[in-house]
């Protein structure tokens, strides 16, 4: 009896294994996209909007690190912060205070910069209606098997996003542009992330299929900035993108993190505003969508020395390694020589001292005027 059970087990193992092979092979051919694109836009001008450029560059950095090459990224920065004359450290844009992380780096290609970042150019890039002399690096050459990530940041309001302090794009225009892209088969799936005040209003009007959207705040709420750096003198990042960057730094090309994890980034306790998302137009379940489907360019490469017959059971192959091709890693950030920054408790201690001296001099009875 036992021998029969054992033999039965032995026979079923190769069957089970062949099922495993078939499901793996089935999964191999089931993903919908073949290439990845990213359009990253910063719409604000002037030195005090440093944080919007830092936001965009952090997403650029993550996207490049996870594999999307420069030729597939359209980066639009409305002003130059790195070589701005007010920048105490030229050719750098920092995202963390005390100058820990330089998101500008040494290998960056900005496609649209300065006055070129306009609503017209943005919509032309999305819809592909560019003049014939536009160079390739400024075009979004996506096809119907492309997954596109679109990231916008800047100042916005209920239903609009401000470009460079002189014009606006409305949520209806954006929805129509995406519909044009759908009709021209310019995307397979599209992830839209926006980090502005009242960002959720920008995705309310979408009506094309296969769109997923995330925003940093709901209608009526403001998105807040994270932390200022005392040496540079401006706020370095916005809260939502700061925590998004922290989340993305944990992601590597073989990671299995999915969209549900992305929706949990920056809850209200950290962000003060309530991030929102919209998945009703998206056909797959967000739990089955990998982060690297949009943020990375993961090529499904499987190296094998055997032929695999997909219709009939196969012998279990001896060694099978599924490799994902990694893009060359970007230069690691060495800890920089830190300038001295005053400790955070300094201001607090100073005020405590002032209050103590005050009450000592004038007596405790003045306490009722404070509280």
């Amino acid at each position, binding site marked *: 009896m036992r021998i029969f059970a054992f033999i039965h087990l032995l026979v079923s193992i190769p069957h089970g294994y062949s099922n495993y092979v078939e499901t793996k092979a089935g999964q191999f051919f089931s993903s919908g996209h073949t290439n990845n694109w990213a359009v990253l836009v910063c719409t604000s001008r002037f030195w005090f909007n440093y944080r919007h450029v830092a936001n965009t560059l952090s997403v650029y950095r993550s996207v490049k690190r996870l594999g999307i090459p420069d030729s597939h990224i359209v980066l639009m920065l409305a002003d130059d912060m790195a*070589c701005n004359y007010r920048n105490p450290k030229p*050719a750098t844009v920092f995202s963390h205070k005390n100058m820990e992380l330089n998101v500008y780096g*040494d290998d960056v*290609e900005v496609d649209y910069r300065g*006055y070129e970042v306009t609503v017209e150019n943005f919509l032309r890039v999305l819809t592909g209606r560019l003049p014939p002399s536009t*160079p390739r690096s400024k075009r979004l050459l996506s096809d119907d098997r492309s997954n596109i990530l679109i990231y916008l940041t800047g100042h916005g309001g209920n239903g609009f996003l401000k470009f460079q302090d002189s014009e606006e794009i409305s949520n209806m225009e954006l929805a129509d542009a995406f519909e044009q892209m759908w009709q021209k088969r310019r995307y397979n799936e599209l992830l839209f992330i926006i980090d502005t005040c009242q960002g959720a209003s920008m995705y309310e009007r979408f009506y094309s299929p296969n769109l997923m959207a995330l925003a940093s705040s709901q209608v009526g709420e403001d998105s807040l900035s994270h932390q200022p750096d005392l040496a540079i003198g401006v706020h370095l990042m916005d809260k939502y993108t700061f925590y998004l960057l922290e989340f993305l730094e944990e992601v590597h090309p073989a990671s299995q993190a999915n969209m549900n994890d992305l929706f949990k980034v920056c809850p209200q306790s950290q962000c003060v505003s309530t991030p929102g998302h919209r998945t009703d137009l998206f056909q797959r379940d967000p739990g089955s969508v990998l982060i690297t489907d949009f943020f990375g360019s993961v090529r499904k490469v499987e190296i094998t020395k055997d032929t695999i017959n997909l219709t009939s059971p196969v012998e279990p192959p001896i060694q099978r390694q599924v490799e994902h091709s990694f893009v060359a890693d970007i230069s690691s950030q060495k800890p920089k020589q830190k300038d001295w920054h005053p400790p955070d408790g300094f201001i607090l201690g100073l005020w405590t001292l002032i209050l103590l001296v005050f009450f000592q001099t004038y007596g405790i009875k003045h306490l009722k005027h404070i509280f």
Partner: protein
Amino acid sequence: MNERQWQSTDVEVNRSDGTKNSETFTPAPAKDQFQEELVIRPLHSGDIYASFQFRTLWDTDFLQEGQKKVSHYRLFPKSLGQVLSKFSVQELHISFTQGFWRTMQWGQPFIPSPPGAELWVWFHHTVSDVDGNWKELTNVLSGIFCASLNFIDMTNTVQPSASFKPLGLGNATDHRFLRYATLPREIVCTENLTPWKKLLPCGSKAGLAVLMKSEKLFHSSFHSQAVHIRPICQDEQCTSKAWELRQTLNVVFDHYTSGQGKKEWSLFKMFSRTLTEACPLASSSKVYVDITDNPELFELSPATPLLSQAVVLGDRRTYSVYDLTRAETFGQLRSFNLLLRWKGDNMLRPLLHAERYVAGFGLQTGEIHTVIYNNHPYRAFPVLLMDSVPWYLQLYIHTLTVTSKSRDNKPSYIHYQPAKDRHRPHLLEMLIQLPPHSMTEVTVQFERALLKWTEYTPDPNHGFYVGSSVISALVPSMVAMSTNFTQDQPLFSSFVPVKEESSYFVRVYTEPLLVNLPTPDFSMPYNVICLTCTVVAVGYGSFYNLLTRTFQVDEPSPPLAKRLANFIRRIRGVPLLA
């Protein structure tokens, strides 16, 4: 698994005598060579000037008719080669500069450039539509260099008649094939350096280009990167033509911002890197240090026995040469770091320099003053001044005055092309004779135009830029310049072709101008709408009320206690309260 056999393919090679034979493929002998060089020159103000030059020389012809299209690129970058052949470019000069070259403190640069972006191109004489080619070329270059060169259009392009002669081979004297444009507002940052570095054969991985780290390069007083492409003669008799691509990067490090006040320099301090090897694809890789003022002014280590003399910019200078292709340059640590220590101060008097500024007040009129100084003690020489002013500064040429030593100085050649609104800028070229040891002032009055509200930039209160003036001159030289054409000349002294021994060619750029145009108040439409709506609401509303409102007397309802009391009184039958 079947093994793949790699076999050499048989290729039919078309011989020049017309016979075809198929033989095994042999690679053609390399017809291109690459040289790299770094010149370090301590400047008299205590700053230090580093000039990188990378030259690729390619024995081929993009433009010859009847020849097969070039398809194999080895050292010459393919992106530029395709641009040259597609747009039939004879010469291309593009530069991106951040900062202004201070001639009074630093002397003359090896390769001058104006602040912002400058592009000038000579097209081949077979081109029929030069303007169309120019427009497409600027767009393609904006994609290659990540710069907004697509803002170059007919409103800021000029065709100088005399100031920009071809620097390479070219009998093109027809200036219809020349186009010149400058974008003084253009910012230079790492995004321009990245594609520039990728054009080099070794990239930024080996050779002198490893020193180019953006965090140090942009923390400087002056930074300029340029690409110069021109056809040159291979030898003295000019039997064959070759294409030369020079990529230059000039940077001046300020001893206050980066040196912490101490006049002590090393390669590591300037670039935060040292050299470890030469580029393997380079036929020569050298570092020159200008030691003409050694030992009174500074000391240099490590010492080297190799010395070289060169006449450059009218002056005979001595250089210490470090050859990076030799292993002993790197010493035992396999790393090469240069150290310079300053000892004293000295003043400098360049022979030719210029300044420019805007005079006047208010937002309607103004005056442009260009001041040119000739510091030669006894020689007078002519200079060619080229001014390209945008159309929205309307120049009044009848107010143009040129004075030297408080006397009128009439230019011997004037080429003036007036501006056309929204179509063409002003172009003024004058040949002025500068008397010895004098100051010449050129003034012209202008009026500011009011632009249409859509033509203003998103930040109009910043101001509008006017590109630098260009002053080209053959300055008499104290030392005889060598007209010898040798391949072994260092790169920095062979950039400008020398036609005669007694003078050298110099190009001086003035400061760009920043003028404020009368700017409308862009919030006015919003204000007007608010005000009008308020006035209409208040006026019409009041009028409507007057006509249609009626008044009625209304008894106020008594309080609850009174109502209750009245109710009880009614039941009792007693008269009610008031």
